[in-house]
């Protein structure tokens, strides 16, 4: 059984239909990169999976739990950690508290255990020295790395990353992308919406290309960047435009 099953969903904002009879499955392993022009429904797809947007029709099952059932949302969100384009660290808490508050309050984990895990994750994202810093003492890239660590604190089965480097300068982006690569090597399942083509090529095991709310191409990394790119003029043009 796929970990995330998107079953024939439609999502519209007013008259604008963003996802149209959209179906796709995501397995319990690997990194799926979702590419496509802006406004094509990539972020909306992630937000629907996480239950932040309600779907108009169809269903999404996460580990067998339907996002249409309100009572499932907490479990679904714990299973699918999400990091946004605009980093939001809780401003009244320092870095450590930002990391430990959710596992303590939501999962009921002991504080000591949460602190240990937070320190491990901060080591992994290279920010152990920022343990007691506040959000306004961190750069954009550092804040985004903390946000990734905070999502990992909930031990999610999958991470949904929504254009997490698009608000960052190239140097900060590189810092963040390195962390994502490290997590991918550790076997964390990820669904990544990005416009960073070289990064996508390095990290993806599967590439989804979306346009007008539908899947244009769903292939392996190798296939996408060789065969599909050569055969599909639209995709070739998209990749070329992104590069320039």
């Amino acid at each position, binding site marked *: 059984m796929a970990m995330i099953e998107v079953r024939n969903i439609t999502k519209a904002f007013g008259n604008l239909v963003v996802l149209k009879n959209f179906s796709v499955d995501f397995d319990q392993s690997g990194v799926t990169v979702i590419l496509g022009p802006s406004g094509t429904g990539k972020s909306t797809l992630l937000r629907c999976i996480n*239950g932040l947007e309600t779907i108009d029709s169809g269903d999404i099952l996460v580990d067998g739990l339907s996002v249409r059932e309100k009572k499932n949302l907490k479990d679904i969100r714990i299973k699918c950690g999400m990091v946004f384009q605009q980093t939001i660290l*809780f401003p*009244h808490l320092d870095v450590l508290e930002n990391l430990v*508050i*959710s596992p303590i*309050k939501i999962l009921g984990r002991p504080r000591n255990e949460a602190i240990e895990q937070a320190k491990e994750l901060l080591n992994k994202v290279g920010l152990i020295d920022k343990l007691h810093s506040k959000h306004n003492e961190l750069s954009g890239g550092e804040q985004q790395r903390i946000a990734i660590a905070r999502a990992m604190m909930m031990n999610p089965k999958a991470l949904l990353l929504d254009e997490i480097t698009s608000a960052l300068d190239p140097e900060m982006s590189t810092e963040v992308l390195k962390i994502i690569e490290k997590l991918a090597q550790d076997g964390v399942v990820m669904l990544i919406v990005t416009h960073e083509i070289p990064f996508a090529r390095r990290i993806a095991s599967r590439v989804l290309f979306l346009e007008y709310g539908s899947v244009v191409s769903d292939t392996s990394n190798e296939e996408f960047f060789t065969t599909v790119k050569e055969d599909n003029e639209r995709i070739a043009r998209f990749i070329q435009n992104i590069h320039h």
Partner: protein
Amino acid sequence: MYLNFSFLKTFYPSLLQGARLTLIISAGALVLGFFLGIIVALMRQSKSKTLRFIGSAWVEFLRNTPFLVQLFFLYFGLPELGIHTDPIVTSILALGINSSAPNCEVIRSGLLAVKKGYYECSYALGYNSFQTFRYIVLPVSLRLAFKPLTSNFINLVLTSSVVFSITVNDLMGSSKTVAARTARPFEVFIFIMLAYCVFTFVISFVAKAIDRRISITL
């Protein structure tokens, strides 16, 4: 004319007692006004039209009626309803209810300053609406509202001087007695004005120290 403050030697115990009462009434009203302010702010933010209406009516009513009238209404009105409270409790109730209106507005502006992203970020981590409010939105908005809440509290302390009119021997009440007994109203009220200044100065000083520790930027 010369100033003579020798009355302080004789009457300082009653003035101290009055100051203590002013502090008790102000502290009680502060707590009541704060929690009522949060409740009314939430009502004004509610999705329910009825709750929003009640919240707005509460604030507008309190803002548009004199505090002295509200105080007399409770002091003389509650016994009519069979509720008998002593003047001190009535003072705390009246001041608390009265200060809930400006507190509500300040807390509401703090709540409005917390953008949609904070809610979404919390929901995405698995928080429900109550947990989001309790652990994220409320602490953030109260920190943002702290400074204006402090000036509301200073206003409350100053307004508390009115409660002498329902027989409470607070700082103002006891000073009136001292002024009558010494026939030195000028000196007595100079002293009382200074005493209120000291109160509010200390509150400002402590509030600034707290604000330095808890202030945040979004």
